[in-house]
């Protein structure tokens, strides 16, 4: 009896070497062996055709009719359409502008991830960086203006995501403070805004911004469509970010609030100098997760007829000369999203470990 119990409960820390544990996991019991064989069968069924399609049978260069005969992917299509997928309808000979703007936005996001740049001067960097990126995209100085209808592709995805997060930040902090305030009226307003916004899908907010916002303006006034989408994204993200900031504020012990008061700091001073720096630090990885989701969610602007990376990739496969290479187009777009998001989530894990020290 005792023997049976002991057998069913092997010691938790096994002294076996690593490969032995691995082997036990894979083939230790009949069930595990069966599971392993099933997984191998699944891989054997899925991987060779996928490899053949993506690499072995693929067409890397050449005209469209070469692809028609091939059994594999047509990467020549991506090569032909690369500039369109990345920059869309932006003037062919001036595409260095959106490229530079995209690079600036990526650099800003990347630099802000480094703890070295968590200081006040970075705010100025952001201000100048964003101004430069917008200036580059609008076409000035020293060139004809480029209307926002022609802004498209990857820079638009980056712009909507980066400005969405940065623009939402001040609003989110105010909302989070309002939601924790002792003032009932202000608190109720904040709760209403946050819960209503979080209760509806982003597509609904985008439709409201596209269809309803123009009606709400005085007769004759108009807002640019891309700007409307940007406003919708800022408002939408601010509700989610406010909840993250609120979680951070709640994690700060009451002693910190009391200590700030004892030093004679007023409400805004104690928030700015004592509470918020600590609160935001604890929720950075949640903010990174939100940013990853936001970058992916910018694809939804397709439904209101704007052209982000996914939409340019999709429409590239509608060109009569290269009709129907959807799998290649989606695969390429997926690769870009995958790269950005995997780097960001790895960064988030690294940061969590670093901050825990």
């Amino acid at each position, binding site marked *: 009896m005792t023997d049976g119990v002991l057998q069913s409960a092997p010691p938790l820390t096994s002294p076996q070497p690593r490969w032995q544990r691995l082997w036990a996991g894979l083939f230790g019991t009949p069930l595990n062996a069966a599971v392993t064989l099933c997984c191998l069968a699944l891989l054997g069924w899925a991987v060779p055709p996928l490899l053949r399609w993506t690499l072995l049978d693929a067409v890397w260069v050449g005209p469209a009719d070469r692809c028609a005969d091939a059994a594999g992917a047509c990467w020549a299509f991506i090569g032909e359409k690369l500039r369109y997928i990345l920059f869309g309808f932006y003037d062919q000979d001036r595409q260095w502008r959106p490229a530079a703007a995209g690079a600036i936005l990526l650099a800003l996001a990347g630099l802000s991830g480094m703890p070295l740049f968590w200081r006040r001067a970075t705010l100025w960097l952001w201000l100048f960086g964003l101004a430069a990126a917008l200036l580059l995209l609008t076409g000035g100085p020293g060139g004809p203006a480029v209307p926002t209808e022609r802004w498209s592709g990857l820079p638009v995805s980056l712009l909507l995501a980066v400005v969405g997060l940065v623009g939402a930040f001040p609003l989110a902090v105010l909302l989070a403070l309002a939601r924790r305030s002792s003032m009932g009226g202000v608190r109720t307003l904040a709760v209403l805004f946050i819960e209503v916004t979080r209760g509806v899908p982003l597509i609904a907010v985008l439709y409201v911004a596209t269809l309803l916002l123009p009606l709400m*303006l005085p007769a004759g006034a108009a807002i640019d469509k891309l700007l409307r989408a940007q406003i919708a994204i800022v408002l939408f993200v601010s509700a989610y970010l406010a909840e993250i900031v609120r979680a951070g504020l709640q994690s700060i012990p009451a002693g910190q609030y009391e200590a700030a008061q004892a030093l004679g700091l007023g409400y805004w001073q104690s928030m700015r100098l004592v509470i918020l720096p600590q609160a935001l630090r604890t929720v950075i990885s949640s903010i990174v997760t939100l940013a990853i989701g936001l970058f992916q969610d910018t694809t939804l602007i*397709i439904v209101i007829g704007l052209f982000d990376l996914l939409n340019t990739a999709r429409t590239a496969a509608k060109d009569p000369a290269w009709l129907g290479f959807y799998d290649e187009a989606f695969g390429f777009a997926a690769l870009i999203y995958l790269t950005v998001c995997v780097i960001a989530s790895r960064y988030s894990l690294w940061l969590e470990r670093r901050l825990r020290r």
Partner: protein
Amino acid sequence: MSSPAPSGALRSGPVAAVTLWWGGRSGLQAAILALVLLGGFLLGSNTLANMERFGITPGFAFLGRPAGFEIGEALLDYRPQDSYALALLVGLLNTVKVAVTGCLIATVLGVLLGVARLSGNALLSGLVQGYVELVRSTPLLLQLFFWSATFQALPAPRQALNPLPGIFLCNRGIQLPAFADGRAGGWLLAAIALALALALAGTVLRRRFWLRDALSGVSVAAVACGLPAALLLASGVPLQVEVPELAGFNFSGGTTVSPEFSALLVGLVVNAAAMIAEIVRSGIQAVPAGQWEAARALGLPRRRIMRLVVLPQAMRVIVPLLTSSYLNLTKNSSLAVAIGFPDLVSVINTSANQTGQVLETMAIMMGAYLTVNLAVSAAMNLYNRRLAARGAR
């Protein structure tokens, strides 16, 4: 500006409650509220003026007018000459249909994947991890486009794939076996609902001390299964199952799931199952190792440790997160508009463009999503409270 709360605030009563809620700084609060109201009033009056300019009468009278557009698939009997109200209801029911089926399938798949992720088998857990990473690092819309393209690229009915007997995959959708009599499905659903209700009632009653001896688990199960089955047989509904068959260029018999619905459902389920797998994994890992060790010291075998010790504690972490992933799936179903499935947002968009009643249609859309969200949150909170209470006991 700031007025300290009057000492009377400590007394109970409605006035005291309002004073406590209002807090202090009446001037500042009044100013902020006035600003928000003023903004709302300005935007509202602009909207009304603009609607008048375009010759649109504000109000919900348009709901009674004939909609005039087709809806590809509907749970109700809908024709273009029916009213906008019915069209919107059809859209809402389509959203509910995909959300409910999606949540059910994603839960089952997600729990299985979450457990697989924790298995000692490195190959299995590695595969699940790869799947989760791939799904979480690509936009849902891209995944939906992919599934949509995949379902459209299926062969024509004559060359339909036949993965399981009676199930066919072709570019017209998925053909499934179904009851020959249309009413049978409804009766079966009602019987299953009755069985679940009886089982739930029996379980709750058995918890009560004085009924524990009178009701054994077996008798509850027997009643919960037997009574609905007897009712189903007594109703006299024919329960023959009809298998789809190729007739000419299309299938006849059985039921068809449209390619749009299939693509949306598969995309949402694949996405949500990855999230739920992560939730289940983190929930189980959140149970301290000491709990495993203590249960082992009591001599419990692994399976019973999981069921009696770990899962009840993990559920307290899992349920709130599961709620938000159900809500996410429901909200994500609005992406249907991009792949041509007539969900609520798609019908609202068509109605708004046809009638110009933008304010009203947007209000209906927001209201519908908020109601669905509140209903799901309320139900899950009720369940969560029971879990939390059981833990505290």
